[in-house]
Structure formats: structure tokens, C-alpha cells
């Protein structure tokens, strides 16, 4: 039997979401831009979805919701739009953090080449930024603050509401990549003082290839894709109606179930952390309190992450790692480096992300299997031998 513990990568679609999509593949298949009745039936569904997504996010007006192809597109468009608005006013400074998703970081790198300056705030050992850091970094040239709601690798939840308040006070636009947060913890764009927010459906049991960019009224988006008048001219291309309907149903379901799923998953997460802490010379990555309910992230000394994942997979546990070998790059995860893990320790990282269907039994199996696999790899590791012999110093006590 397979235990899927990689829900931060993607989730299984819920039956509710699948059922919500089906009618839009055969019965209501029209193009919402068509004037005839078949098209208008599709347009009605699209309008309904927009209203429901706006309500689920606490947005004031459905017009603030733009449907995209996913989180990466939403991040790109949010940042590009805010940068352009800033540039028109002669403001070319952006504030972000060192451990954002690459959809944000790579967009910022491009903007730097185009003449913007970016301040990357330190996320400390606990994986958290403070509103005070943001406040101190804002200058008269700042046009945008972009900070993720919750980190995809270590699960830390940023003080978004307070950061949003700092930005409001300073008159600076605030974008948050909420791809890992929406559907997992309460998110409300109005209460959280958010101007721009990105989300992705497949992270909360919705379909892949669809997401949302929320833009508060008055924040003018610029389009990345030209061609048609869809999404008020901000995103050309015939709308992915089945995807949008599936996402809307998944979002409503996830948000409605939060009072149940959050405490349940938090308890399982804490048990998993407790169990894995019995492995010597291993440590949790990121703050334990301000943390996504389903995220467990560890570093184990003396082993490498890819071999850990392959053996876990053999034992029926699907997980992920921030080691260089799993990413195809030479460096381990930028997130783990940002919280101060040295390279050799970051290579031995393990991320387990639970979902609402994970059982207590699954968690016990994961603990048992992980202990076995770590011990097996350490038994053949020259690094572990040196650590045990005192020839190399442990980083994790």
C-alpha cells in the first residue's frame, strides 16, 4: 500500500471537485464569450464561480478575481503588474524574502535585470520574517512587498496580516503567494490586508492547470497573455471552465472543512514530528508553532535526500527532499540554505506533507519506515562513520 505524503507537491482531486467538473465537459461545453444560449450557459457558470471564489477568499467584489493557469502564472502577473505600476511613478524598489517560490524569485531576478532593485529579507533560523523587518526595509522608492503566506518546503506561516498592515500604512502594494496556504488555513484578503494574492487549485484537492490571481479593486493588472477580452482583457484565452468549476468546488469544500481538518492534521503532524525526533542527529526545519497543519520537514545528518526518498518509496512512502540530487541542480534547497542549514545538512532533508485523509496508522508507518531507512543509509555512509568517530563535527546535536 502506498502512503502519499507529498501533498505540498500536489493533491489527489476530491470527488466533489471531479463531479463539479464533469458537466462542463459535455453538457455545458460552450465558450463563455459566445452570444448564443450554449455559450451563455457557460458564461453563467463562470460568473457563478467567480462570485463563489470571491466569497471564499473574503474579497469584496467578484471583479477582483482573475482566473489563471495556476500559481506560477498568478505570481508572475501579480509581480509584473505591481512593478509596472511602480515604474510609472518612478518607484523601482521591491521587498521580498530569500525563500520565496521560484515563480516569485525568478520573476524578481528578471526585474533586477530590467533595473529594479530587490531587498531579500532574512527569514532567520525559524523561517519567519517580522513586520518590523518589512517596515524597516520600505523606502520612498518601494513599489511592492511580495512575501509568501506559507512556505512550501518548511511550512512556516508568515505574519501576513501584520505585514499587510505595514504596507497599507506606507502606501505600498502587498502581494502574497498563498499557494500553500489557501484551503489549509483561514485566508481572508480583506482582513489580512492583501492587495494581490496567488493560489493554485491542485494544492487543495482541485484540478491541475488552474489558479487565481486576486487583485484588490484599483490595482490595475497588466496582461501576460494577449489575444482576447477574457478576464476583462487581463488574461486572454478561452476560460478553462471545467478546471474553474472543479477549483471552485474544491475551494469551498476545503474552506468549509477547515474547522475539522486543521486540528486533525495538526495532531497527526505533531505526532509525526515527535516520532521522527527519536532519530538521533536530526532536526525539524522551521518554526513549530507558526506552521502549516500538514507540514513536517527534517534534516538528518550523514545521509543524502535522494537515496532516502528512493528507499522510502520502496517501502511505500511518497515524500520529497530539498537535496541537490532531487532538484537536478548542484545546490540544495534555497529554502534550507536561507534558514541557515549548511549544504551538507541540507542534502539530508526530508519533507512529508499530510492531507485530510492521512490516518494515525499512516503516521506510525511513516515513522517506523523512516527510522529504518535512515539507519540503513547511515550504516553505509562514510560521513556518518566520521561523525560517530569524532573526525567530523555534528551540526545537529
Amino acid at each position, binding site marked *: 500500500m502506498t502512503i502519499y505524503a507529498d501533498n505540498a507537491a500536489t493533491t489527489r482531486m476530491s470527488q466533489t471537485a471531479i463531479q463539479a467538473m464533469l458537466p462542463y465537459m459535455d453538457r455545458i461545453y460552450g465558450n463563455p464569450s459566445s452570444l448564443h444560449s450554449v455559450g451563455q450557459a457557460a458564461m453563467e457558470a463562470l460568473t457563478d464561480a467567480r462570485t463563489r471564489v470571491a466569497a471564499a477568499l473574503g474579497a469584496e467584489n467578484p471583479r477582483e478575481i482573475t482566473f489563471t493557469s495556476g500559481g506560477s502564472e498568478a505570481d508572475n502577473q501579480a509581480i509584473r503588474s505591481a512593478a509596472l505600476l511602480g515604474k510609472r511613478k518612478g518607484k523601482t524598489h521591491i521587498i521580498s524574502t530569500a525563500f520565496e517560490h521560484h515563480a516569485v524569485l525568478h520573476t524578481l531576478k528578471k526585474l533586477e535585470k530590467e533595473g529594479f532593485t530587490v531587498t531579500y529579507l532574512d527569514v532567520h533560523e525559524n523561517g519567519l520574517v517580522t513586520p518590523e523587518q518589512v517596515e524597516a526595509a520600505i523606502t520612498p522608492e518601494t513599489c511592492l512587498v511580495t512575501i509568501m503566506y506559507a512556505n512550501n518546503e518548511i511550512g512556516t506561516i508568515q505574519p501576513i496580516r501584520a505585514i499587510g498592515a505595514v504596507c497599507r500604512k506606507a502606501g505600498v502594494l502587498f502581494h502574497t503567494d498563498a499557494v500553500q496556504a489557501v484551503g489549509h488555513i483561514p485566508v481572508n484578503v480583506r482582513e489580512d490586508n492583501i492587495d494581490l494574492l496567488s493560489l493554485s487549485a491542485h494544492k487543495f484537492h482541485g484540478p491541475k492547470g488552474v489558479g487565481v490571481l486576486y487583485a484588490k479593486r484599483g490595482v490595475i493588472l497588466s496582461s501576460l497573455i494577449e489575444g482576447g477580452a477574457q478576464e476583462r482583457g487581463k488574461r486572454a484565452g478561452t476560460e478553462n471552465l471545467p478546471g474553474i468549476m472543479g477549483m471552485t468546488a474544491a475551494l469551498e469544500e476545503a474552506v468549509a472543512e477547515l474547522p475539522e481538518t486543521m486540528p486533525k492534521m495538526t495532531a497527526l503532524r505533531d505526532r509525526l514530528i515527535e516520532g521522527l525526533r527519536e532519530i538521533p542527529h536530526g532536526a525539524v526545519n522551521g518554526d513549530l508553532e507558526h506552521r502549516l497543519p500538514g507540514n513536517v520537514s527534517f534534516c538528518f545528518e*550523514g*545521509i*543524502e*535526500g*535522494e*537515496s532516502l526518498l*528512493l*528507499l522510502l518509496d*520502496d517501502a511505500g512512502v511518497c515524500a520529497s527532499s530539498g*537535496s*541537490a*540530487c*532531487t532538484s*537536478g541542480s*548542484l*545546490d*540544495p534547497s534555497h529554502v534550507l540554505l536561507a534558514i541557515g542549514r*549548511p*549544504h*551538507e545538512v541540507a*542534502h539530508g532533508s526530508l519533507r512529508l506533507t499530510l492531507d485530510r485523509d492521512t490516518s494515525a496508522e499512516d503516521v506510525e508507518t511513516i515513522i517506523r519506515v523512516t527510522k529504518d531507512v535512515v539507519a540503513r543509509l547511515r*550504516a*553505509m*555512509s*562514510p*560521513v*556518518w*562513520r566520521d561523525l560517530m568517530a569524532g573526525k567530523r563535527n555534528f551540526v545537529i546535536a
Partner: protein
Amino acid sequence: MALYSDKVMDHFRNPRNVGVIEDADGVGEVGNAKCGDIMKIYLKIKDDKIDDVKFETFGCGSAIASSSMATELIKGQPVSEALKLTNQAVTEALDGLPAHKLHCSVLAEEAIKAAMKDYYDRHGIAYDESQFPACHDCEHCRI
């Protein structure tokens, strides 16, 4: 298609010759922990043959499989044959490696050569320096 060939997975799951030789005649260690892989080879040499060989590896699946295969390829071979081991031979014996994992086979070759060199040095045996070129200036080591 799977990331690795069945051969790689077999040698990764059931690595041959894992361990340490306490009274080894030659020991070689290459790679560094910062890059994410270290290989250590222990040799026991008798009558100019590789009488025994063991390895320890910290690294990814292909690093473990490459070390395992490299030890299999030289075990019982005359020293002169073992010295001819190439990373291509290791890769071929494993039915190939993904392009970004080829450096693992290079490390395996280098680890074996480092152990042979150590054997020569310890035993005062003269050798041709050109047989042991300095570590390839591969991208891998430039972090």
C-alpha cells in the same frame, strides 16, 4: 520511464561490497559532503590482485549504485586491470545513467584510483604519475 535503469535500482537497493576493511592496503576517498556525495573505497591486495574491496558512500541512488558496480568490476581482477577501470565502463555496466548523474560514475572511477594510489604510496611501489590525473575540474566541485 523511470529515472534509473533496473540495474541501477538493483545495485542501489542491494549494494554489493558495502563496508570497511580494517587492515586495508589502500584507502581512497573522493567527493565532498557539501556537494552531496562522498565515496570511500577500501582495497585488500594479494599477489597483485584485488583480493577484496569494500565501499562506503554518502550520496544519491546513482552514487551508491556506481560505487557498488565499480567494486564488482574490479574485485578479483589483477591490479593492472583494475587501474584501467573507466567511468564509461561503470555507466555501461549499469545500463546507463541519466546525464546529470554521470558524475557519480566519475566519482566511482576516481575513488578506485585514489585507493590504488594510496596502496602504491604506502607500499613504496613506483608508479606512473600520469595514471592518476588530478581530480577532474568538473562543475561538480566548483560550488
